């Protein structure tokens, strides 16, 4: 077994210099999966055959010039993979074999990526801990007593447990950034309309984005280059004009983010981030996002409304299993969503939420007139213990207080690992920028990591 590198560049350098072959890479990742998967419940399906097929193909051609050539990739199980079971971690789709692959799966395949398997997640991406999976919770590789975060629990677990070099998740309200944050990874929630959602099982259509997870900002950038752009299948995707970072960038921190319930270690970390940027000559100012307190209420009206609509197709006629196979959280969201859309309640809930959403967008438009990006916690606390929040859905929903923003506003957000808590759990923060400012966020993220001398690390 080889020691698998933790960056795309090192991986490709190794392949190009024949230090190891793609097949050997696959051997190593599979060995790791075999060793730890039953314990950590990270993969729902391991695509050993497909991984070897692609690796052999790459080795045979011997050309690793594709941007993701030889990059072993894990997919959250809501990405459709033609001919490979895709469950959304719900028993409803227990035996579902898709007839086509998601655009993003195809793009990674064409760029030379190797599929290693389909990862566990909260069923239909409903959750912030991974505990809502109908196939059982994923355990945090950094500490088995803790959750990985969710809903892209397995995608974060796979990369931090060295079972895959990178992974795709989805981010509807923080589902990529929060698990990245709990597992010491870089996670990107792109601009709504930057990456095609075609072939990703829909959760909330106005909020869903394709997230990516990796060890470094460089790798996230390489993935973004491959994934972005029009495919003619997602009507919201556009090819934007490239943006360049202001030579004298300014960052902002919203005073509304320092709320009750914000962990003191997280708060301290935000302060250290501020100081780090100031040290390298980047100004950090305080600003106000007055509608911050409405973020979670608005999210928990818009999201369930769209969920209730998107899950309607699982009506028991197609896809094998009837509606009794829906888990508790899915049922809760279907009921909430149907209620806020019902005649007589639509105006009071959905319509009103949409109006507040417009106000929230207004806050950010205003803020981005004075700053280039906003520094924010990803979640109020480091990873919590399994079972800690499961009996209190409302407490669980508060996990989303910092992450739902970027989804409601449609802007990009980059979660960055920063440090570890006293108890040894990863802590990080996020940068949010205006629509299509991904490259600026990458640049700012790299500056930070360079300054703190960040080194990618796996849990084992």
């Amino acid at each position, binding site marked *: 077994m080889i020691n698998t590198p933790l960056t795309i560049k090192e991986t490709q350098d190794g392949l190009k210099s024949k230090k190891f072959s793609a097949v050997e890479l696959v051997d190593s990742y599979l060995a790791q999966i075999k060793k730890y998967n039953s314990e950590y419940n990270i993969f729902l399906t391991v695509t050993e055959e497909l991984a070897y097929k692609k690796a052999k193909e790459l080795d045979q051609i011997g050309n690793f010039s594709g941007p993701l050539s030889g990059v072993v990739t894990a997919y959250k199980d809501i990405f459709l993979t033609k001919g490979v079971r895709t469950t959304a971690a719900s028993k409803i789709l227990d035996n579902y074999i898709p007839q086509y692959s998601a655009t993003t799966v195809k793009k990674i395949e064409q760029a030379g990526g190797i599929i290693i398997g389909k990862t566990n997640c909260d069923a239909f991406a409903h959750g912030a801990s991974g505990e809502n999976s109908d196939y059982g919770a994923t355990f945090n590789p950094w500490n088995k007593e803790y959750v990985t975060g969710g809903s892209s629990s397995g995608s974060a677990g796979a990369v931090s447990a060295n079972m895959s070099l990178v992974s795709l998740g989805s981010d509807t309200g923080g589902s990529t950034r929060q698990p990245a944050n709990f597992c010491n990874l870089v996670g990107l929630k792109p601009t709504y309309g930057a990456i095609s959602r075609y072939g990703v099982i829909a959760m909330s259509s106005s909020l869903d984005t394709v997230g990516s997870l990796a060890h470094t900002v460089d790798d996230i950038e390489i993935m973004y280059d491959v994934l972005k752009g029009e495919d003619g299948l*997602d009507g919201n995707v556009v090819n934007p004009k490239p943006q360049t970072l202001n030579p004298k960038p300014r960052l902002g921190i919203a005073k509304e983010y320092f709320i009750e319930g914000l962990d003191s270690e997280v708060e301290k970390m935000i302060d250290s981030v501020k100081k780090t940027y100031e040290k390298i000559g980047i100004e950090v100012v305080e600003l106000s996002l007055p509608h911050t307190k409405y973020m979670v209420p608005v999210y928990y009206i818009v999201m369930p409304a769209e969920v209730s609509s998107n899950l309607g197709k699982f009506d028991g006629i197609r896809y094998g299993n009837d509606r009794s196979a829906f888990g508790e959280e899915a049922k809760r969201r279907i009921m909430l969503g149907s209620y806020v859309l019902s005649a007589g309640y639509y105006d009071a809930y959905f319509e009103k939420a949409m109006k507040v959403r417009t106000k929230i967008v207004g806050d950010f438009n205003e803020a981005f007139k004075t700053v280039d990006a906003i520094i924010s916690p990803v979640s109020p606390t480091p990873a919590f213990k399994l079972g800690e929040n499961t009996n209190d859905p409302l407490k669980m929903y508060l996990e989303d207080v910092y992450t739902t923003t970027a989804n409601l506003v449609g802007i990009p957000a980059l979660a960055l690992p920063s440090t570890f808590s006293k108890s040894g759990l990863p802590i990080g923060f996020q940068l949010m920028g205006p629509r299509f400012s991904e490259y600026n966020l990458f640049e700012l993220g790299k500056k930070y990591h360079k300054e703190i001398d960040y080194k990618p690390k796996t849990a084992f």
Partner: protein
Amino acid sequence: MQKYITIIGLEIHIEPNTKSKMFCSCSQNHFGAKPNTQTCPICLGLPGALPIANKEAINKTIKLGLALGSKIFEKSYFYRKHYFYPDLPKSFQTSQKDNPFCVGGELLGKQINHIHLEEDAGKLIHSDNTSLVDFNRSGCALIEIVTEPVFHSVEEVISFTKELQLIAKYLDISSADMEKGTMRLEANISLANSKSQTLNSKLPNYKVELKNINSFKFLEKALNAEIERQTKALDSNEKLVQETRGYDEKTKATFSQRTKADSDDYRYFPEADLPPIHIGELSISNFQFSILELPAKKRLRFEKEFKLSKDYIEILVSDLERANYFEECVKQSSNLAMKPSVKLIADLMINKNLDKEFPEPAGLVAKLYALSHREYAENNTTENAVKQVLSENPEVVISYKNGKGQIIGFLIGQVQKLLKGKGDPKLINSKLVEKLREENF
């Protein structure tokens, strides 16, 4: 005075003749296709699939709206309309609600509420104990024209529907064929007591929706049967309820399909997967430019320009191809020295179906030319032939002189025979009369 006033509002669905379905690239034309051969992840509503709006369908909807004088929204949205049915694979129909493409407008003095664009559902096929679903029609584009409740007779409904059908054909939006299902009609009917209510007062507190009307014959029968049913019910003080009814050809009566408790709750909300559609001023003026002469205008022009009878005009205008054929014939024949009357052209088309015989207008014009410019035998040749026939038939000449005037017909026939049919009948007649007078036997 009639005891009740009939109040009818229409919802007319037109399947536009686009190349592809509303949100995917499957074929829009599903007529006669083998079940489930024209489907894809999008129109099957498979997980992960997303819609892309069909520009051609949007253009056709706007074209129809402009033709009917509707206001076109600059920014239009699609909505999700939720209901459960096995032929609706996404569990919602993508339709429109607020800001549909067209609002208002009128036709034959009847106000239109709005025109919107949506997708069709699949088709259920019931046989024995099984029900099968054919998804070929699922996701097909559908234009819906919703009128105000302003019809007061079955005749008004029929002429409105026929005129709309004609306009759809003129604009090349749809074949608007009721039998093939490219035009479907639903009528909301209620009766108001004419004593207690005037036409402008409040509508009755119920309406009956008549569904799945698929021919004009059927439409007339179904509406009349329903009006009769409601009249009888009101006469006997029965309370009429809000419901959906169908028409049974065998019993010649309508039957209840579904009663509606209050209104349906479709849980409409904006479809985020389809960005708002912006229709700029520029594209609207382009459309206006491209809308050709509509039937009403054509009727007026034909009356003014050609002075044809109303019946003739209606026959020609009701078929755009025939109207164009007619005009082409008039144009081409105007160059002929002996200009045929437009009435003759219309006659030959309508009564003799010559437009069917000659697929090209030039063919019919050639025929007209042949008729009007027949090359008769020359004067001298005719005179010689007359002389010959008279000398060869002395006994006929005698009969003529003895008063048998009608025998001249035989002589004309003999001359024509000699001239191989090329004689001018008028000229032969006059020459014969002249010679018979001259020859004093």
